[in-house]
């Protein structure tokens, strides 16, 4: 195997591992093609198995012949390995560096991983677009499934099947695609059964400097409005940025050409601004200076919570248009693969009770992120510790999860899943044994034959033994729209992600356990009482029978 070339020293003895919350362990370090393994050989529980793809950056230091490698992971954990012998240390470090930055996707672990569990339900087929559409088709006949993108020729970042207005044929869709950035013509993202209003999403229109138009685009967008109704176009860029985009061939919908639509500009940051924000935030969280002023000003300077607030505000706006104004919404930014998806998917969390269940949320991730073409591979290639300035990384998905967490925190009984579910998704988006988050869109995933060659994350998650870890014990189905507060005082730092490795959560976890136990025990007692009541009733009727003759 070609990995062997990269591993000059496959094992070193007497390596000391330091990691958060555990005492230092001495053991044997082994490097394999995909893992870094430390085994103390005394007790299996002391083993470390770390995916190379989870490693974000490494530092090495030497004191005499004792080398130290500090490994910074994409999940923000920092571990330290003390390795005796300078040569061994250098070899290990260069191997880790090489193995954690492999270019080829097909060399990634998901292509080698063989599950040790029985697959009950193949996650690759758990959320098919046809099934999702069936949920709507009972309520409306105004929409249809289109296979126009079957070969990924019309829009490379869309899935083969999309939902579009029934009155628009595939020919028109092809024309609209040429008028939208990346071929991302407007498609249905969410149908609000209560009043028939919809959320659509797309790429920006390619109006350019000379104000190009596209009749089919105007027709498509208007076809989604009922007679006399108005709609809102939510542009996730500020007006200024949208205007500047015209110089590069992009732009926004001119009011004159879309008379029934009102355009609203919001400004959600993207790309390196978000990445810088994450880097600053994680740096602040790891700050050891014990100074309250410094911590608060670093937290402020990172701007992370400002981004959370902006995204939530935009999602609330979209949800408000739908539920309170009774107006349909089209959301787009520039490419329509980042902030657009944040706003559209969060609006659904607010509006749609189903998306707050485990299955519904998985379906949302599958439909609104994976199939909608969020470029996971580019965005999640590096995390907060990376020094090299690359263009494509951005914690867009993490910000989305953070926003979901904020809503979950404000409505602790309305979600079927708990915080750990969100943390798990974060981890797997950045490094995973499953193929779900590989590739940048459906087209790439097809070419990689992920369905045949890798295991889906959902196959693993949806087993009862795993699901029980992610269940929210306080869940009580809430069929209402939930309106989160976006006042700055209401938004908090997500400790479960950002302070996870700095602060022991032992006591908080214990409390959570205790709560779960109480609820479990209560359920048992209730069941017992019911049995006893039934027995009592039976005895009473028996008595009655005996006495009556």
């Amino acid at each position: 195997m070609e990995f062997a070339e990269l591993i000059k020293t496959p094992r070193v003895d007497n390596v000391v591992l330091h990691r958060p919350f555990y005492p230092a362990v001495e053991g044997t370090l082994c490097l394999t093609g995909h893992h870094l393994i430390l085994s103390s050989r005394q007790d299996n529980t002391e083993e470390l198995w770390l995916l190379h793809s989870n490693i974000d950056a490494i530092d090495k230091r030497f004191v005499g012949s004792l080398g130290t490698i500090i490994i910074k992971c994409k999940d923000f954990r920092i571990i330290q390995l003390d390795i005796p012998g300078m040569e061994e240390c250098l070899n290990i470090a260069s191997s880790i560096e090489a193995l954690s930055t492999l270019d080829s996707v097909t060399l990634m672990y998901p292509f080698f991983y063989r599950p040790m569990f029985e697959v009950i339900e193949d996650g690759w087929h758990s959320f098919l677009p046809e099934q999702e559409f069936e949920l709507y088709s009972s309520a409306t006949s105004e929409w249809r499934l289109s296979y126009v993108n079957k070969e990924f020729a019309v829009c490379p970042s869309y899935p083969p099947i999309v939902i579009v207005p029934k009155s628009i044929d595939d020919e028109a869709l092809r024309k609209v695609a040429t008028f939208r950035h990346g071929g991302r013509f407007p498609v249905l993202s969410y149908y609000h059964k209560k009043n028939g209003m919809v959320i659509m999403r797309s790429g920006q229109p390619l109006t350019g400097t000379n104000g190009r138009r596209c009749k089919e685009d105007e027709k498509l967008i208007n076809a989604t409005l009922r007679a006399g109704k108005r709609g809102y176009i939510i542009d996730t860029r500020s007006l200024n940025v949208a205007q500047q985009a015209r110089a590069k061939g992009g732009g926004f919908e001119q009011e004159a050409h879309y008379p029934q639509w009102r355009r609203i500009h919001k400004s959600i940051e993207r790309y390196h601004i978000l990445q810088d924000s994450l880097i600053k935030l994680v740096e602040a969280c790891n700050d050891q200076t014990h100074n309250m002023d410094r911590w608060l000003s670093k937290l402020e300077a990172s701007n992370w919570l400002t981004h959370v607030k902006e995204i939530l505000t935009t999602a609330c706006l979209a949800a408000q248009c739908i539920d309170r104004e009774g107006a349909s919404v089209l959301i787009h930014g520039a490419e329509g693969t980042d902030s657009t998806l944040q706003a559209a998917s969060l609006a659904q969390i607010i509006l749609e009770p189903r998306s707050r269940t485990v299955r519904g949320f998985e379906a949302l991730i599958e439909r609104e992120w994976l199939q909608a073409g969020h470029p996971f591979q580019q965005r999640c290639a590096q995390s907060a510790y990376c020094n090299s300035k690359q263009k494509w990384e951005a914690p867009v998905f993490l910000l989305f999860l953070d926003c979901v967490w904020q809503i979950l925190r404000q409505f602790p009984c309305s979600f079927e899943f708990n915080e750990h579910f969100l943390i798990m998704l974060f981890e797997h988006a950045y490094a995973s044994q499953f193929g779900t988050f590989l590739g940048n869109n459906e087209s790439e995933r097809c070419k990689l034959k992920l369905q045949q060659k890798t295991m889906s994350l959902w196959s693993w998650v949806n087993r009862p033994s795993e699901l029980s870890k992610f269940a929210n014990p306080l869940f009580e189905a809430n069929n209402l729209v939930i309106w989160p507060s976006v006042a700055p005082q209401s938004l908090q730092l997500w400790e479960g992600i950002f302070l996870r490795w700095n602060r022991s959560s032992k006591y908080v976890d214990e409390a959570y356990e205790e709560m779960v136990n109480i609820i479990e025990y209560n359920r048992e007692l209730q069941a017992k009482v019911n049995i006893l009541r039934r027995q009592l009733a039976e005895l009473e009727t028996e008595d009655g029978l005996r006495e009556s003759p």
Partner: protein
Amino acid sequence: MEFSELIRTGRAQAELLPGPEEPPLRGTLCVTGHHLLLSPGPPSTADLWLLLLRSVDSIEKRVAGDSGTITLRCKDLRVLQLDIEGVEATLDIARSIEALSSLESVITSFPFFYRPKGLRLGDAWHFHPPECYYKRVARETNAWRLSEVNQDFSLCPSYPRAVIVPRAVDDDALARSARFRQGGRFPVLCYHHAPSGTVLLRSSQPLTGPQKRRCAEDEDLLRAVLAGAHPGARGFIVDTRSAQAAKQARMTGGGTEAKAAYPGWKRLHRPLERGRALQESFVRLVEACGDPEQSMDRWLSRLEGCRWLAHVKEALSTACLAAQGMEREGACILVHGAEGRDSTLLVTSLAQLILDPLSRTITGFQELVEREWIQAGHPFQLRCAHSAFSHARPKHEAPTFLLFLDCVWQLGRQFPLSLEFGEGLLLALFEHAYASPFGTFLCNSEKERCLCEVRTRTHSLWSGLNHLKEQRKLRNPLYVLNPLAIWPSVEPQSLRLWQGLFLRWTRPPESSEVAWEKVWQIVTEREKTEGSQPTAST
């Protein structure tokens, strides 16, 4: 009654807007000697709405046309709006509220008139006398005795009648030591830590003055403390002022213990904010919390600028230092600042919560508040005269007690199983400290309480709380006795704004409370089912 002179208009028609999430209430508004009442008209079935005038912190009136608006900002940080018919009525009511809410006389205050059903006067006042705590100490060690040297409050006006002092020191020596300490607050025991056999003491600053005066009896007293602990015991004096401030205090007659005069004792300085600076921090925090429309940057920089969380961190760190000295170093600790009635109590009471599992129970915590705050002479009346909305220039106001409650809340957040009481008890104590129908937080010291006959003429908050129907609101459903010390993390990342208090009236109701409410429901249901089980099975 003299109140009638202050009430200009008996009644008026008004509409009350109680808060952003609650429906408005219409009815007849009435000002009485101690309350503002709103009784809804016949079509409404809502109950009478009642506000203790004492809890009004500031009042603002506006008139337009033939009606007026009064905005009441309460000491518990609630903001209420009253729309009143009639300009004259509005102005009269506003003036009456203003006059009645700022009455200074203690014996005309509401607790002297409050006679709830089911409570008997005099009950619960003796729940927690000093003798009671001494019994516990005496079981653990015989190095200490209960002294009644302050029987008539002549030695130290801010101490209770009985205090716990080293057995080896007689009352005469205490009297001399008292003369050497500001306000007569000689070193007394506040906690004996049985596992390590060490003690926590508090006092005020020594009056060394510029000539570096000494007092042999004071030195003997501290020597006796070490001798009574264990052979070779060391001690730390935790001064809650900076070294600089302590030095400067000499100019005004105060000062700090000279190293040479107290062998075995080492002085540590941990400056804690007090007085006006603390009050301003509180005012600025509440101001920042009241504005939901600001940007995230502005909010975070105001949160930083008000420095409240920095004060929380300093208080907790100093308490940890004191607790660590006792538990880990086996040392005795003496805490004092200048007067020994504010930051000193903050440190000694928090250190006990960290170390002593008993003080984390509901009764233990009430006992701690009674012993370490009320009887220890924290001047509640001066400190809590106004809350964060007052326009008056603060004189003696300072939210020291609130800072203590905030620190306790932080402990509870980090150790969710270890406190028997919940946020509800802390919120109740905050409210009652600032305005209450009970007499517990009245006056500035035991001496004043005796003069006003608070104990015989008012009801105690403790009996009020223990008779509360909503008992469970005070309790933590997840409590499990934790026999160990609880060491909080004082890193800034670990400390949080106490939303339940500072954002209580501004944020939407659905939040962690709903989750707690649900856990409570389940726990009570469980108790019910468990209770009914034996009868069902027999």
